[in-house]
């Protein structure tokens, strides 16, 4: 492994990271809070529930215990919600299932120790960022794929209706799009819909 030339941005920005801790005020809760403060994050503690996350929350550290299983956090699963690091006290299948539902990249075991929290935060933030970027990339690919499919369908229709080659069909679509000042996929969509309307 090679050392990076520069300190990773995620670590540089830790002091402005807003962390929401959803955890009871027990020994684990105290240890978590103290270590997050040593690291220098901005911390707010909630228990047992938080219906609305404070603006700018960048990370959630959350106890997953038998009593939290029935709780419903409305913000969970929303596309805008930050990554969650579960603090786990049990390793039975039900608790593990609850952890899996949080889409966590890492966990913190109870009893909480100061050591390991910083690494868990770095892993969670980095993987979350990478996963967000991947999701956006997949979205773009899917949209592009849908457009291509539409154009392909429209070309097929034009080829059959006009008896032209694939290249000629494409050029026809393109010139229509330019004439109407529209995207080629819009024209293609109109053709496909019109064709579907006629195909009864």
């Amino acid at each position, binding site marked *: 492994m090679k050392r990076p030339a520069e300190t990773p941005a995620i670590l*540089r920005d830790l*002091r402005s990271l807003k962390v929401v801790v959803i955890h009871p005020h027990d020994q684990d809760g105290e240890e978590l809070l103290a270590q997050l403060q040593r690291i220098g994050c901005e911390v707010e503690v909630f228990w047992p529930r938080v219906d609305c996350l404070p603006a700018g929350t960048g990370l959630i550290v959350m106890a997953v215990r038998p009593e939290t299983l029935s709780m419903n956090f409305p913000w969970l699963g929303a596309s805008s919600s930050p990554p969650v690091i579960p603090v786990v006290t049990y390793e039975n299948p039900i608790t593990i299932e609850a952890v899996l539902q949080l889409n966590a990249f890492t966990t913190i075991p109870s009893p909480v120790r100061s050591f390991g929290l910083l690494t868990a935060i770095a892993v969670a933030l980095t993987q979350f960022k990478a996963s967000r970027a991947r999701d956006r990339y997949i979205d773009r690919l899917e949209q592009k794929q849908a457009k291509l499919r539409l154009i392909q369908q429209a070309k097929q229709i034009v080829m059959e209706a006009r008896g032209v080659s694939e290249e000629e069909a494409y050029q026809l679509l393109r010139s229509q799009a330019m004439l109407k000042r529209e995207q080629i996929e819009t024209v293609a969509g109109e053709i496909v819909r019109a064709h579907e309307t006629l195909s009864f």
Partner: protein
Amino acid sequence: MTSADSGCAPGPIRIGVLYSRSGVTSAAELTQLQATMLAAEEINLAGGVLGREVELVCLDPQCQPRRYADLAEQLILEHRVRIIVGCYMSSTRKAVIPIVERHNALLFYATPYEGFEYSRNVIYTGAAPNQNTLPLAGFMLTHYGSRVSMIGSDYVCPYESNRVMSDLILERGGEKVDETYLPLDARWESYLEAARRIRRLAPDFIFSTVVGEGIPHLYRAFAHVGLDPYRMPIASHMTSEAEIAIMGAGVAEGHITSAAYFQSIDTQANRLAVARYQARFGGDQATNMCWEAAYFQMHLLADAMRRVASDDPTLLLRVLPGLEFDAPQGRVRIDEHNNHTYLHPLIGRVNAEGRFDIIGRAPERVKADPYVVSHRTPRWTTDARPDLARSGGAR
């Protein structure tokens, strides 16, 4: 909460001591051992702790991390010790932490290290990077320039120090012209080769994170190839009077170190402590930053034991955070939240006598911030107007 049986039993209070008498970093560790002995003798002369003598159980880990761990366990299990002072390199501290945590013992660690650690069972009395590397970087980049050559021993503490330095160099648009790591047991020839490369690269200064026996090699190699410390100094946060004693003042003169303590500090507490030390161990004995931390942590510990009338770590941990002491460097304080110590950062330059002229000092003691990633350069290091002429000293 259990009451401390050992604390109420008659007889001496035993404290475990893990400093190496041989091995790569033994020069500094030996001074820590003697500082611990001096402090223990002072405590006993003053009547001990609650009428009981402090008794040191000194074992020699020979600079091998595994031995620190084994001997720590031996101290706890066989010598019934609950408090250990010692460790030097980070690898040795990391080896001992699981042991003191498992047995709920307490380690006092008196050496500067790379930060990013907190154990409930460790009190850190040496400097964190924001108390030594950061001031040194600010001072050197401001007063010497930002073309920097880095040389260090090949282990974790130098990597982290160089990361801090690299970030600050980049921030100023400077240039890291070289980054070399040599094994802890590297020979003279390797240092000579490094010194020749430095001469060829002609940086503004050299940032050294070399530790132990390599330090005299580096400074001698530097002199050997004819480099002038007054024009292109080696800046370090580990080179102390202990290593200068080995390399000689002639070789060390002009080079720069940042530390919370130098032997030359002009305080009443320091003059008395140094005099007592030399009376006990010999007039030629030099003190240093690691010596001082090892010395004052014993007095902090004794004070804490008096307050709780016990040597039980759980009870001691209730009073140690926030505790203050008039150390040779000035008044120090254990932080309430991170178990590290507020210290007084200084920049010193070696003079012809092998002592440090203080050419920069923090206006007040500085809280240790072991988890800071992005450092902000302290104003006093950039605003300082040090006299850097050959005979320069404190303003």
